[in-house]
């Protein structure tokens, strides 16, 4: 009995630990609902740079746009234009990027606008697997030749003609990120614009660095799973509590002397004892009470009869009877008499 008690106490401690652990997970997963932890993100850093160098006629040296952007247009021989576009992703992507360059001469006269395409490059395409798109290139604008065409146009359409030369770099990328399970696309345009004026003021796209993030789609399915897991832990906690209650109840049950004696008798004389439902009608019997159960056993053995047993008052009184013809041998076991 002592061993059973120790086992039960150990079980209670174990169950309390399990309740603690399960409660922690119940609260943890319940609080995860609605927090969108399934959202993945990718950070993107985009930068673009543009510059040009002007080579003047009869001059040995380039002049960089850093030093000034105003020139006598008739003295410009060549403009070498440089662009760089780089995109860095925080996790690997796959896809492609491309660029092409278009040059236009735009003339305006009498409120009308005429746009002539003077240059178009082939589309250059590249594939990317990794984290970085880095695109660098340069191209020459042979301004001497272009301005010659403009001057011809101006001669035809009058002195009020204005215009500008514009070269535009068109860049596109289309990539897929496994991190956020999403395609990303972007396009950029870089331009250099040279007004066709005697003193021209060249403008280019300004350098820029943009940092941004992109995210995976919200996953609401996980919310349902969090709830299911929380309910599972809650179910486990309820069962653990029930178990503790049962164990405590069992531990709380104390065996009385009456219980003990009864249990012993039932165990020892199990083969001879017949448990009956109700006390038989002994009105027509001559009743002989015996002092000890052993005497009843002797009687049963001598008469070769079973001992009938009925607990007339639960946990308090039991009656053992051997019936033979009109005689009843009776032994009473009661809590009062034992104590």
């Amino acid at each position, binding site marked *: 009995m002592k061993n059973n008690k120790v086992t039960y106490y150990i079980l209670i401690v174990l169950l309390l630990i*399990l309740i603690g652990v*399960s409660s922690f*997970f119940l609260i943890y*997963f319940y609080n995860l609902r609605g927090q969108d*932890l*399934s*959202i*993945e*993100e*990718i*950070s*993107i*850093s985009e*930068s673009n*740079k543009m*510059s040009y*160098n002007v*080579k003047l006629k009869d001059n*040995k*040296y*380039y002049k*960089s746009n*850093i030093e000034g952007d105003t020139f006598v247009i008739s003295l410009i021989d060549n403009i*070498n234009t*440089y662009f*760089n576009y*780089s*995109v*860095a*992703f*925080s*996790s690997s992507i796959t896809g492609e990027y491309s660029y092409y360059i278009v040059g236009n001469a735009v003339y305006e006269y009498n409120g009308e606008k005429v746009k002539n395409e003077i240059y178009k490059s082939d589309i250059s395409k590249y594939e990317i697997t*990794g*984290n*970085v798109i*880095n695109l*660098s290139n*340069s191209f020459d604008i042979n301004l001497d030749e272009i301005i010659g065409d403009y001057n011809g146009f101006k001669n035809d359409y009058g002195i009020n003609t204005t215009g500008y030369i514009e070269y535009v770099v068109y860049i596109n990328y289309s990539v897929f990120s496994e*991190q956020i399970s999403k395609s990303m696309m972007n396009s950029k345009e870089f331009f250099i614009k040279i007004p066709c004026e005697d003193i021209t003021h060249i403008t280019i796209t300004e350098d820029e660095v943009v940092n941004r*993030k992109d995210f995976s789609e919200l*996953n609401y399915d*996980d919310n349902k*799973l969090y709830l*299911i*897991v929380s309910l*599972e*832990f809650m*179910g*486990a906690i309820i*069962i*653990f509590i*029930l*178990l503790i209650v*049962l*164990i405590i109840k*069992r531990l709380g049950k104390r065996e009385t002397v009456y219980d003990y004696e009864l249990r012993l008798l039932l165990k020892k004389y199990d083969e001879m004892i017949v448990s009956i439902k109700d006390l038989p009608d002994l009105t027509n019997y001559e009743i002989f009470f015996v002092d000890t159960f052993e005497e009843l056993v002797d009687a049963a053995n001598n008469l070769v009869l079973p001992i009938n047993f009925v607990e007339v008052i639960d946990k308090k009184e039991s009656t053992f009877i051997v019936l033979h013809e009109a005689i009843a041998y009776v032994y009473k076991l009661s809590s009062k008499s034992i104590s």
Partner: protein
Amino acid sequence: MDSKNNNKLISSLFAVSAVLLAVAFVTITNTFAYPSSKVNTALWDVYFTEPSINGGDSRVIVSNDKIDFNVSLKESGDEFSFITSINNDGTFDAKLSSLKLTDLSSQVVGTSKDTGKTYYICDYISFAVKYSENNDINAVNVDSNLTVGDKLKKNTKNNIIVTVKYKDLDRLTSDQIKVLNENVIREDNYLVFNLDLNISAVYQQM
């Protein structure tokens, strides 16, 4: 309730709770995407630094990963050089994917009337871009040429020397010297080469 039934109930409840916990833990480990780890910053930043110029009549302009320069070399033996470095301040290792130098072998100086041979600027001018220092991390050695595939790991730099030299006369043939005299314009009695040169070194992620 007798003890046998009681024990059966306790055992059954234990079994049910064990199953519930097992299902919960399997669901946790197999189903959920764990919260994503901290997102790393991403930055690509590879560039030439401003040069340190050694003599010569010149102009050097650096634009990110391109260098344009004009140089005048007056006479044979003249040399112009400058030192710069290519830096990687980004978060990714890089490798040289494209290296373009002005092609001096396509720019004609003149054709010999005697031999009919055509000479180009590269016959008179040498143009080299080399590493000026060892870098063990990037496995580059001093005096070696920049080559496609060269490494430039993050937070490192490779020091570079660019040299343009007017070849010594004793390295030119008489025919070459004759063509030089016939075709190159004299400035103050010098046979001057005014050169527009550029270097483009494009790196990609390693």
